[in-house]
């Protein structure tokens, strides 16, 4: 029985695998979303098989129940007693053994499938994942970092080496059928391989990555986009990603880098004045937007202790005070967020020291200073300036690759196969 199930299952999986082929996306159905990894067909097959077994058993149970209830319904109050069997060993053994055999079959199917999910192939491409409340950071072998999207190469196994900086998180990509918790104090792994290539030029072409282990206030918002690029596009992307801040001209920094960096801040800090887990960068409490509150010194702060309220930023910023300048205050608030807390907010924000360099901080401060030039969702209003800046970036890239001619790239970033 079990063997039969297993061999039948292998047959169908191999069929699925061949039909799925290079296109590599199984369409969404009533139960499952699109399957976009090479592991998805096997999971879906197990799911569907259990589905059909369940449909049969459920229908059987309900039909028998309803039929008995109609057939043997008591009319009036009198008990029409009819002696019937109260015990039947053959029947009882039968209905114990059959479910047991079916369940053993299902167990083996799940178990072998799980070993596939669990064991990454040897030649996998490693990406380091760091989770913290409430953002993701993906670090590539060439040092490139990404926080607003996870981009992976198509057609090769990708292994995520994951850790958490604070509480439990869990990385879940529904379309890939993979999930793994991130546990503080230890590394966990997850692997997948996808051939479902996304178009790098189409921002609406992506898949979702969710956090599925409850991690606090903005748990629901801790999700980013996943994109699968072909080798060429992936190589270009990782290269650009590694030096993207340097490729932007200084005057373009705040509106080119700002929105990209802000994607990590948006889970807690809005631009439209509504407070989230953290204070909005937009106007709040009649005191203007963040930059106005800081430069005017009107923002209310708690001095790092909730009990020590009633003070404003003016008490801390200025010559001879805790922070010499407004920029110092912002920079320190990103590196050591608990030092001075805005009134009404707890010490929730993790430090970004080591993750955001001076140039990134400059970009963010620039964005705060020119908040009126941005839409509420963090995009820059003036598309023409963006286009001009993009042209300058291309020029800088060209110049940079000229300069680096002859320098060997790190092995990891080269396309293997």
């Amino acid at each position, binding site marked *: 029985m079990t063997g039969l199930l297993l061999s039948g299952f292998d047959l169908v999986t191999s069929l699925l695998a061949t039909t799925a082929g290079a296109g590599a996306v199984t369409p969404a159905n009533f*139960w*499952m*979303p699109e399957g976009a990894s090479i592991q998805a067909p096997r999971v879906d097959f*197990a799911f569907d098989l*259990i589905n059909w077994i*369940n449909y049969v058993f*459920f229908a059987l*149970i*309900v039909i*028998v*129940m309803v039929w008995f*209830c109609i057939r*043997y*319904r*008591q009319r009036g109050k*009198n*008990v029409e*007693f009819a*002696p*019937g*069997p*109260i*015990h*039947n060993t053959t*029947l*009882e053994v039968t209905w*114990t053994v059959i479910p047991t055999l079916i*369940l053993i079959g*299902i*167990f083996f199917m*799940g*178990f072998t*499938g*799980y*070993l*596939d999910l*669990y064991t990454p192939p040897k030649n996998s491409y490693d990406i380091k994942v760091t989770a913290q409340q409430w953002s993701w950071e993906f670090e590539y072998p060439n040092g490139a970092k990404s926080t607003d999207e996870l981009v992976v190469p198509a057609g090769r196994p990708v292994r995520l080496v994951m850790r958490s900086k*604070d509480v*439990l998180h*869990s990385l*879940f990509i*529904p379309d890939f059928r*993979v*999930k*793994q*918790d991130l*546990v503080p*104090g*230890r590394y966990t792994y997850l692997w997948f391989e996808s051939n479902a290539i996304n178009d790098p030029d189409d921002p609406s072409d992506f898949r979702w990555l*969710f956090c*599925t*282990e*409850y991690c*606090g206030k903005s*748990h*629901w*918002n801790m999700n980013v986009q996943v994109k699968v690029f072909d080798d060429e596009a992936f190589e270009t992307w990782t290269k650009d990603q590694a030096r993207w801040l340097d490729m932007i001209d200084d005057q373009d920094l705040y509106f080119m880098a700002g929105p990209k960096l802000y994607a990590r801040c948006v889970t807690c800090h809005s631009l439209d004045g509504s407070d*989230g*887990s953290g204070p909005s960068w937009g106007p709040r409490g009649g005191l203007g937007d963040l930059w106005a509150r800081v430069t005017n010194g009107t923002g209310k702060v708690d001095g790092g202790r909730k009990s020590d309220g009633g003070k404003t930023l003016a008490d801390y910023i200025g010559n001879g005070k805790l922070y010499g300048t407004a920029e110092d205050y912002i920079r320190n608030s990103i590196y050591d967020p608990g030092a001075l807390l805005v009134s009404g907010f707890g010490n*929730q924000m993790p430090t970004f020291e080591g993750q955001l360099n001076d140039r990134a901080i400059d970009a963010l401060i620039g964005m705060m200073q020119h908040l009126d030039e941005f839409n509420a969702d963090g995009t820059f209003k003036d598309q023409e300036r963006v286009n001009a800046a993009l042209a300058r970036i291309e020029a800088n890239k060209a110049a940079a690759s000229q300069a680096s001619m002859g320098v060997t790239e790190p092995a990891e970033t080269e396309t293997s196969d």
Partner: protein
Amino acid sequence: MTTIDTPRAGDIAGNPPVGGTGPVDNYLTWTKGALSWIFTLDHKRIGVMYLTGVLVSFLVGGLFALIVRTELIAPGKTFIEPETYNMFFTLHGAVMVFLVIIPSIPASLGNFVLPVMLGAKDVAFPRLNLFSFHLWMIGALFTVLALLLGGFDTGWTFYTPYSTKTDMGGVVPVLFGVFILGFSSIFTGLNFIVTVHKMRPPGMTWFRMPLFLWAIYATALIQILATPVLAITLMLVGLERAFQIGIFDAAMGGDPVLFQHFFWFYSHPAVYIMILPAMGIISDLIAVHSHRHIFGYSFIAYSSVAIAIFSFLVWGHHMFTSGQSALLNTIFSAITFSVAVPSAIKVFNWLATLYKGSIALNTPMLYALGFIFLFTIGGLTGIYLGTLNVDVHLHDTYFVVAHFHYVMMGSALIGFIGGLHHWWPKMFGRMYNETAGRIGFVLVFIGFNVTFFTQFMLGSQGMPRRYYDYKPEFEIYHLISTIGSYIMAAGFFLTAIYLLHSLFRGARAPANPWGGRSLEWQCTSPPPHDNFKVTPSVGDCYDFSVVRWSEEEHGYVIDRSKETDSSSGEGSGH
């Protein structure tokens, strides 16, 4: 005006009042005043007080659920902030698990019914029983205190390190509250085990006990063995929160996953603390209302104990994606499947009991049939989650939410409501309106399925649980689910109204309104203070051949002339 303790014809239930003519007393009016209730040693009064507490908690927990569902009716903010939302789903879970479902059947119905079923005057240790109830009240007060001190947003699972780091003020009070509730549960279980062991009447061997008692007994074993582990675990979490050091904290070299092991070592058996008594109730309800000897008595009895034992060995199936080793995952998956078999056996036995019965579709029976329907879905969907590679996809999504609501609410709680309707006439001596009862059931049943079946689709499509907001493609499911929850709320509201109404205006209940054979149907409704003046005679509690409808009593009577003494009252089959 006739009072509730008007004497009834004594011989209706084979237990004549002393002297044959004196009025039968009534536990409800035995003594008067609030203190006579709060410090009563009468298991029936304690049961009724538990019942009140559980139902009030159920109302509160249900309102929290409606808040959560209403927030989710459309994407974006509907009416509360994310942190408020997180607090409400946490409160909903904690209240429903610790204050409603765990005490619902054992502590309220069990307390009332168990000694009467045994023909006993009370449980073995009445003072300890009262103490359990007081502990329960204190535990409940701490939960309220937790709310007043700022609430808590840890999820009912209290996963570390979030629970030791979050800055909400209610975490320590609620941990302490659950700790105390745990003791209440342990003492109740202890009391029941001793009662079943030492107080069975002559003639009631283990295998002639009503199946509800088997279920309560198996449950009590879990209560005394698993609950202490939860108690010490929560204490360690509390200390860890206070001193910022502990074995669950990775900063010092501790291990957050260890907490999950400990937590589920209790909380998985706790699922069976919830579902086993409900299964016991259903076994008895099906037999009584179809007036048919339960099919495969010993298989059902053994499967209760088997489930109780297996329940200690499957906790790891909550942790397939937690980072525990593949070997452990495999072992836990295998044992998990083995627990499915005794559950399936029970369902088949219930169906076989219906065969050739004389099925009266009273409200309790409707709940019992509803239970079979919902429990089948809950059990079958458990198969997906026990299957390792499928669980990886489904874990921590709405699929899990739907699955455990089918088991914990659709089964455990529906079993409780069914049992409540079954024993309500016995508890309060009044009949509720049968038509209203059936309408209430239909509303609850439809509302439940609309609410939670949609969540299976949501989950398999990839919607994670405990999310304040969601992607637009999930909107239609959430909308349907929320509408379902309103239908269900309407059903429960109606149920509350007709039950309360029956207390004042309901027709007087006969001693035996359904045609039951176990001992609780042999004393008056409501039972006298001492339950039985004379130790009742024990027959086969599933032999319905002697049950007759009596127009005069407006209830069923046992036709003594037909009673056989042997337990093989019905044909012993093929």
